[in-house]
């Protein structure tokens, strides 16, 4: 059966709540202070962005302190009348069985307009007379509607947990689910969630459930999740429209830039134009679009853009003569991924290139294909000669290790240098 991980792994104790340590301590002290009599502020008002554990904190605390937990949310307190119904609960210190009670009014932001008329005022009255701890939750405590209510409450701000805290939480879930996850992948999810633990957990479940391993490639396309539908639609338009003008509209509708749209179409064309005759036409059309893209780069004359658009949308669409239309999932442009992955390596290569440059009268960039490959062969086969080259170019240890490929070879070469 499908269980959402957000409820499966809901914190049962305060210890399991992610982040917000200071706010949680303050809140806990306040609830405990009820043991010594009714405090000045009879309600705690927890506020902060959604998905960061406000409700979870209250539930976990009730659980830790073995309190009776009563929860009401937006649908329960629409009017003054409805609120009066549970006001009685708050007016007694404990339940029939002597267990202390914690009452939560969640989603106060949900009170709006005429239908909830009187709602806030009624809540304020309940707070004034409460005989048992009352907790209020809203995203924004400083909304003008809460002006009076605020005065009677202890305001506790909940902040977004840090990426590291979210990351730790995701890693724990993976351990419990028996998933081996690359740290990069979890970092990506955590970072993207912007501190919203709930959405991070939902993302993790969607991507990892039932898997043994979670790799960076499995998650990187997420960055387009929010806009995924629109992207898919736009790419579909660019490849499947019946008329040229419909295809060209894809560019206007896309909320990604034209180069990115080009990458999407370029990546997906072979999967959707299966007949070789169509494929040849479609890729040629993309190549023409690219040619004019290059012209724009070289001349900064953006009037060529119209041809780029024509070729990459209408030109592709009109290439379809024989290919059958079937449902094929869209793929994320992988060429961009692999380019960014090797970025660090490229930086190192370039720094070697800048050593080669003054010696060989060649640009650092060009030396990467003209000189570097040959040097790296020598490094892998002939430590003696490699050491001579290293001395000649004044290479650093990091560069030597990179060129040598293995630690062992690098050590031999370094030994010869010493």
């Amino acid at each position, binding site marked *: 059966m499908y269980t959402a991980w957000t409820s499966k792994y809901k914190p049962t104790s305060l210890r399991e709540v992610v982040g917000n340590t200071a706010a949680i301590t303050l809140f806990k002290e306040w609830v405990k202070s009820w043991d010594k009599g009714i405090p000045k502020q009879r309600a705690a008002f927890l506020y902060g962005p959604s998905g960061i554990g406000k409700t979870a904190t209250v539930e976990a605390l009730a659980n830790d302190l073995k309190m009776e937990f009563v929860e009401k949310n937006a649908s329960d307190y629409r009017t003054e009348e409805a609120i009066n119904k549970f006001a009685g609960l708050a007016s007694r210190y404990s339940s029939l069985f002597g267990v202390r009670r914690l009452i939560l009014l969640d989603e106060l932001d949900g009170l709006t307009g005429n239908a909830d008329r009187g709602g806030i005022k009624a809540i304020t009255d309940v707070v004034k007379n409460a005989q048992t701890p009352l907790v209020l939750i809203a995203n924004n405590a400083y909304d003008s509607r809460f002006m009076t209510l605020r005065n009677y409450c202890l305001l506790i701000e909940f902040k977004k947990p840090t990426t590291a805290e979210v990351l730790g939480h995701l890693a724990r879930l993976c351990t419990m689910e028996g998933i081996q996850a690359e740290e990069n992948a979890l970092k990506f999810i955590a970072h993207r969630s912007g501190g919203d633990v709930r959405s991070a957990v939902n993302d993790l479940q969607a991507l990892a459930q039932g898997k043994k391993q979670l790799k960076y490639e499995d998650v990187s396309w997420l960055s387009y999740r929010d806009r995924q539908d629109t992207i898919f639609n736009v790419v579909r338009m660019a490849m499947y429209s019946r008329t040229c003008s419909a295809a060209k509209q894809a560019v206007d509708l896309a909320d990604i830039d034209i180069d990115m749209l080009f990458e999407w179409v370029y990546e997906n064309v072979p999967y959707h134009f299966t007949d*070789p*005759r169509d494929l040849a036409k479609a890729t040629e059309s993309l190549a023409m679009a690219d040619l004019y893209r290059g012209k724009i780069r070289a001349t900064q004359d953006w009037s060529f853009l119209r041809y780029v658009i024509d070729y990459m949308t209408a030109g592709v669409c009109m290439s379809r003569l024989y290919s059958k239309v079937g449902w094929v999932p869209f793929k994320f442009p992988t060429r961009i991924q692999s380019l960014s992955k090797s970025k660090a390596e490229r930086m190192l290569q370039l720094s070697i290139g800048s050593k080669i440059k003054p010696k060989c009268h060649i*640009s650092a960039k060009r030396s990467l294909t003209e000189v570097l*490959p040959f040097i790296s062969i020598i490094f892998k086969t002939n430590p003696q000669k490699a050491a001579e080259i290293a001395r000649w170019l004044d290479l650093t240890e990091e560069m030597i290790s990179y060129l040598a490929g293995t630690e062992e070879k690098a050590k031999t070469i370094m030994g010869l240098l010493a």
Partner: protein
Amino acid sequence: MSFEMWAEKYRPKHLSDMVNQKEIVERLKSFAKARNVPHCIFAGPPGTGKTTAALCLARDLYGDNYREHIMELNASDERGIDVVRETIKTFARSRSIGEIPFKIMILDEADNMTTDAQQALRRTMEKYTESCRFIMCANYSGKIIEPIQSRCAPFRFSFLPKEEHDKYVCQIATKEGVILLPDGLEAIFEVCGGDMRRAMNTLQSAASMNKPVDAKLVYAVTGRANPMEIQKMLVAAFNGDFLEARKQMRDMLQKHGVAGSDIVRQIHAELFKTKEIPETLKIKLVDFVAEIDFRLMEGADEEVQLSALLAKIVQAGFESKH
């Protein structure tokens, strides 16, 4: 003597040492003799002696301390307009010391300069002609803007012909004590196509294995753009597997850093050797190979253009079977 890569060690020092580009060298010698040099464009493929010719000319002109009278800038690394405004201008307007009233600015890979930078350069060239002469080295003179071209004497460098290439490579093999077998020499020319820097690097890295250099060894060290790999890619495409062919091409470009123009060159060579492709189709495909080669020179994206070429081969394969 300290170690150097052979391409540097055997780089000619004087114009009279240069074995190729005879007509060009003769004209440059006459410049050195007259002690006057116009602005020049040296255009031609890599490894054909453009930078070498510029350095030799400078040495013949100024003597062994030529470095004091020249500046070498690489436009691929320093191509912005700021470089033109600051570095180049400062050098160009400073007075020359010595008998020859001008200095020489060698702008390497000048075709990689932005159009804006070239426009800015044009004024500098005019204004400071008295004190500075420019030698622009470029693979494609077409990428240099017209106003600059019209101010320069053009020189076209070409790949070394096979006999000269062979003679030169053998000479260096002998000097370095490398046993170079005839099929190894063939292979070097096939892989490098008369690009001397590449030939030197290939020979040196093959020699570092301490074995006689034969064709197998040459292909092994240049495995990055090994003809067999190209053939595998062509066969995959011809048999209709576009995705596999594209993946192989992507690997060559991204993982091994092979230049797109090298892949095109090798596709061209391999096309005629691939038995799977019918003769009549080969010549049709060459049409397109040439087109793609041209587009790459225009600065188009290597992978996108090569994809289009592979798709054409897939189509050719399809049509030959139907």
